[in-house]
């Protein structure tokens, strides 16, 4: 097991190293940040001075190694736009994104579990069809549209819930959390439904029924436990995705998270921020994948023996 974990950690580090090169090159390929930082009236001398002051006049190789050397010590440099250490910005934003993702995942689980199980148990009935409709809606409604509709009606017109920010406590999580989690509900519910159908048709479930075990116990204990393995993988991967791809939701709900930071960084060519956000999210995805793999290996010994 330790060998398996070490191998996966090594893989993740190699991935991060490759990614650091890619993001370093791509960030610079997007354009010159000074065109946004300096006023329209800036002279060529102003450009040269700003480039020197911000360290952008050094050769790319030197800039890269300086970036990597500092990054491994947690120093991602200073934001060209906000003129603050990037690590401070990440520290400010990452917890907000994590909390929102936890809430969104909670919403997804709370909706997907009962729907998925009931759709499987009541296959072909109205409940199953309703679950299918929810699944289609979940995957087809654009997140941006859903977010705007919720802000416009639930918050603006009905005035039930806050429209923006995260400083109103738990209630401020409801609309962005629901919007973010809604997309996951569909996938998770469908996966759980098909997994449950497979398990409910297995011999050991049939045996349990023959032995007279109560149907409720068969479904919620024996069947669900075994149907969960693919769902755990799905939820793990999607949790990382929720943290890292919430740009639209964070923008509409003015949520100060990592997605917004990434958007601000990209739109202002803020290289240090872009690099730090990409590497942080990549590290997060790698860490979650590693955890899921380990969990999977624990649940199913065939996986670790196969490596």
């Amino acid at each position, binding site marked *: 097991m330790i060998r398996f974990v070490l191998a996966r950690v090594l893989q993740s580090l190699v991935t991060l190293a490759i990614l650091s090169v890619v993001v370093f090159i791509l960030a610079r390929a997007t*354009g010159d940040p000074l065109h946004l930082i300096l006023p329209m009236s800036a*002279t060529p001398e102003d450009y040269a001075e700003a480039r020197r002051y911000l360290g952008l006049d050094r050769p790319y190789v030197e800039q890269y190694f300086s970036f990597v050397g500092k990054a491994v010590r947690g120093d991602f440099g200073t934001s060209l736009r906000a003129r603050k250490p990037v690590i401070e910005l990440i520290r400010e934003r990452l917890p907000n994104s994590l909390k929102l993702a936890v809430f969104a995942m909670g919403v997804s689980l709370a909706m997907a579990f009962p*729907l998925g199980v009931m759709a499987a148990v009541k296959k072909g009935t109205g409940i199953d069809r309703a679950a299918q409709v929810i699944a289609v809606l979940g995957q087809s409604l654009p997140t941006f549209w859903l977010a*705007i509709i919720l*802000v416009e009606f639930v918050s603006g017109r009905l005035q039930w819930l806050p429209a923006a920010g995260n400083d109103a406590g738990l209630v401020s999580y*409801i609309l962005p959390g*629901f919007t973010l989690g809604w997309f996951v509900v569909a996938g998770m519910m469908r996966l759980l439904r098909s997994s449950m159908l497979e398990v409910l048709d297995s011999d050991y479930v049939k045996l349990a029924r023959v032995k007279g075990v109560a149907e409720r116990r068969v479904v*919620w204990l024996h069947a669900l436990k075994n149907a969960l393995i693919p769902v755990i993988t799905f939820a793990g991967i999607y949790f990382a995705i929720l943290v890292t791809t919430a740009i639209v939701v964070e923008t509409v709900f003015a949520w*100060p998270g990592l997605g917004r930071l990434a958007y601000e960084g990209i739109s202002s060519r803020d290289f240090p921020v872009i690099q730090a956000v990409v590497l942080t999210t990549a590290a997060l995805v790698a860490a979650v994948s590693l955890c899921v793999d380990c969990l999977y290996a624990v649940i199913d010994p065939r996986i670790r023996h196969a490596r």
Partner: protein
Amino acid sequence: MKRASRTLVVSLLFLALASVVAAGPGWAQGKTDLTVALSSFSTEVLDPVLGGHIVKYYLSMMFDYLVGTTPDGQPSTSGGIATKWENSPDYKRWTFHLRKGVKFHNGDDLTSEDVKFSLQRAIGKRSTTGYAGPLRTLIQDIETPAPDRVVIVTKEPTLIIPTYLSRSLSTEGMVLPKKYIEANGDDAFARKPVGSGPFKFVEQVTGAHIKMTAVDNHWRIGTPKYKNLTFRLVPEETTRIALLRRGEVDVADVSRERVKELEKEAFPVYFRKDEAILSMWVVFGPDGWPAPMKDKRVREALNLAVDRNEIAQSIFAGKADPAAIPLGLSWSFKDIGLKVTPEMTYPFDPTRAKKLLADAGQGGGFPLDVYAYQLPGLPEGKAFAEAVAGYWEQIGIKTKVIPVDYPAFRKNWVDRKTPGAIGYFNIANRDWIGTYALLEKQAYGPSKANDTVNDAEVDGMISQVMRQTDREKINTLMRNIYTRIRSEHYGVPVVYLHSAYATSKTLGKWNPGTVMYDLFFDQLASSK
């Protein structure tokens, strides 16, 4: 199965229950708070020398300027640290008499040493403010003969010093605490700024908000009407409007197309009339005007082909007016005595435009790249570019609309990499000094990088303005510059944009003024 059903019902009701619990005015702002929702904070920096112009929206409430300005942009002896100023006969020494008894938020006295330090910092190499460059070139020395007196010595005779250090332009005139910055360093100051304005800094969460709290009493506004002032960054307009409806914010910038809807709901909407001119220009080649734009007839044809009234109505929901002069910043027109006559306005005349093209040997049209991008305050950017390109198609020009983001266009523009292509900007309106500063960069050949006009006659007049100290002669020069730019069709002025700001129904009267990037929240907070 009953249990499963129960779980389902409970889960589905989860949000509804939370909604009910959460309903009500629990987050509504109290009367002690003034909250402003803006779509952009620009760089979000709190150090005036690190920002451009747009940071003025919030920094003007935290800092005082050396020279105050009235909401309509006129220098004011009652709105700034200087209560009076005078120039030497040769216009090379400007003496400013400072307000006595002014203190920074940390209790330090504001003296001439702070003014000197602030100005040196504003023109220092680290500064990225709008007018650091011209001031750096102009200022020779700063003397502090007394704690309440500062003398700025310039290399050349000039009239611009008071305006350049006033609230009407950028942030160079903001007075910063020398002792605090020297003791704590630039980074500490940028994180926790100390000013002398009516509101002091409390907290910044980048990407979310800037919070300030009022001082007990301030010479600018008396006892502030609001205890707290918060600027919230809310990029999405629907969200800003929802916040307004919920009473969570008191002021929000809104797009022109949502104005009718808000007015129908009885929300007061204030306009900053002519806040910006939306002007298009040609990207130069290394040697200036590229063909076929070199030909005046082609430039005139481009102007005559555009129906400005239709653009104002259809793209900008009627909240715009046709513009007649390239780079024509109309807030300066009254300063310099320029009247835009009916003859100066461009009629919509595609027939004549076609004839002009034919006369110029371009009857078969020519390929023209039009860059399309959105800008802060111009969400209609791409639609606008497509509309203008459509008009040019009508007279036979083969336009190609290229969607990019503004930095990509700006790089092509200043690097002169795509000669003959067309770009645009919603240039913030400003007074004559600000207008001069813009012309010096965009219409003065020797400036090169940002040049959009290449004309020796215009260059000659612009170079005289800076050295001239007779105001009447300056006005004449400025009028002549504009007349020349208009008669030669150096660009395509399209419309003046009016910017809309909606307020809560209980906020009361507000004059957002006509000062560049400054909404004069002073008036809302003032008890005077």
